[in-house]
């Protein structure tokens, strides 16, 4: 059984969380307001990084009902990844500047 180590370095996780939030705020503030809808679908796809946790739960040597929960979570995350990235790209393709028009 390969469980996560019991002693967690939660302080470093809190540091990572805080710094990532500041980076996120700094980067998102400069996103063009034109693109707020695609931004939301993109961050949606990015937060489907929960796929990582779902794969671990689904694929590990756990009882089947635990893995079943993981598989549903995995399905939900993959749905978000696929639809999130595809629709973001579809929307962004439509944004053209004046010069870029036929």
């Amino acid at each position, binding site marked *: 059984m390969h*469980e996560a180590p019991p002693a967690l370095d939660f302080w470093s996780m809190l540091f990572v*969380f805080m710094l*990532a939030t500041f980076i996120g705020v700094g980067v998102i503030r400069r996103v063009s307001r034109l693109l707020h809808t695609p931004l939301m679908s993109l961050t949606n796809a*990015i937060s489907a990084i929960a796929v990582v946790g779902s*794969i671990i739960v689904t694929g590990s040597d756990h009882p089947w009902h635990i893995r079943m929960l993981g598989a549903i979570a995995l399905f939900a995350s993959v749905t978000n990844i696929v639809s999130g990235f595809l629709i973001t790209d579809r929307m962004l393709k439509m944004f053209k500047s004046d010069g870029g028009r036929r």
Partner: protein
Amino acid sequence: MIQALTQLAYLLATGLFVLSLHWMNDPKTARRGVHAGVAAMLTAVIATWAQPHIIVHHGWIVVAIAAGIGVGWPLSRVPLTAVPQRTALSHAFGGLAAGLVGTAEYFLWLHEAQANLTPFRMSAIIIEIILGYLTFTGSLMAAGKLQEIRWIPQRPVTYPLQNVTNIGMLAIAVGLGVALVLNPTAPWAANAFMAIIGLALGFGVLLIIPIGGADMPTVISILNSYAGLSAVAMGFVLDNKLLITAGALDGSSGLILSIIMCRAMNRSFTNVLFGAFGKVEAVKKTGEQKSYKPETTEGAAQVLEQANLVVIVPGYGMAVAQAQHKVRELYDQLKKRGVTVKFAIHPVAGRMPGHMNVLLAEADVPYTDLVEMDEINPDMPQCDVALVVGANDTVNPAARYEKSSPIYGMPIVDADKARTVFAIKRSKNPGFAGIDNELYFADRTWMLFGDAKAVVGDLVKQLSGGSGMH
């Protein structure tokens, strides 16, 4: 060795995610941002999957991924008017995934490795499932309202002691959570855990019931933020820094968008979530008879033709009537005559942040002519014609002085400062929110009654017909 490679891949993915969002700051580089995001995601998935010491079962992974692709692909092909619903639905999926993983980890450790249930990790699990499940049902409700599903009431539903009930439910869930953190393996622990899930699911529904269409942009942003934070909590549970960073990026994005939306409506978070719009009806209806001045499309077309600067103010009505393509034709006709045409975009126009921009971009309007409210307002006094297409609250001058109005203090597009205002309106009844719009009765305003798409189409016909005569 494999572990180091996995961590290296996660590090790479984290960097790519940050770059991905960075490239969204300009429409020119934005698509590169998507590609970076896809690359990061693929890296993360492969690195996670290729850990033979952890991942020993593959069948269900393949099935779940295939099913996810099967559902995700059609969801990405929805018409752009349905983008708000799709976004809400994907927040629901994000919340569900976080909730389920949290549930799985808890029961796994409860039965097999109780030493893992440290207070820190237990707190993270509780936060993960509360946020995850409330985001799940809350976003489903929001998606249902946006899709106008029949059995979900569109109007804000309010009842006595609503806030007490809602906050009470959340407080009980948090209280049970604290008890679980202190005694994660008590005999009653599993039941308490299930009770928290039930309360979070119920709270999500009750939170959205009192929210009306005009508040949707803010609510969607807040739910976006919750979905991100639940991924962060999952990262704390699984000791995975990639989850923490990516979730934090999503969480901060939702936070910033919510702040922008709240500012654009001059309301606070708490006011949006707990101060239901439902009170509106009681305030107004001081019905002294004011009269509209109707105008024909012929007349309006003549005025538009003579103008130097025309500002079009789109709103949710344009999306409902699917009028964006006709609006683009009007834009082309006017441009051909040397008229300068700009679009005034209010931050909360539509049902989600940036909704109008996407619709107009779809109709091929260059984004250089989509101007933010704050930038265009100083030019409004020089504007010859303001054409209001399906916007209502975002151009209501009552927001400036009418203290009793629910939209008092909200920044608006100064359409009323234009020399002439044409407002397209479907019927003579007051709008959805039940608030009279002062703009419609102003001296310089003329009404064009009818469906937005039909009226704009008529204007285009008048303009193109006119040019054929000469």
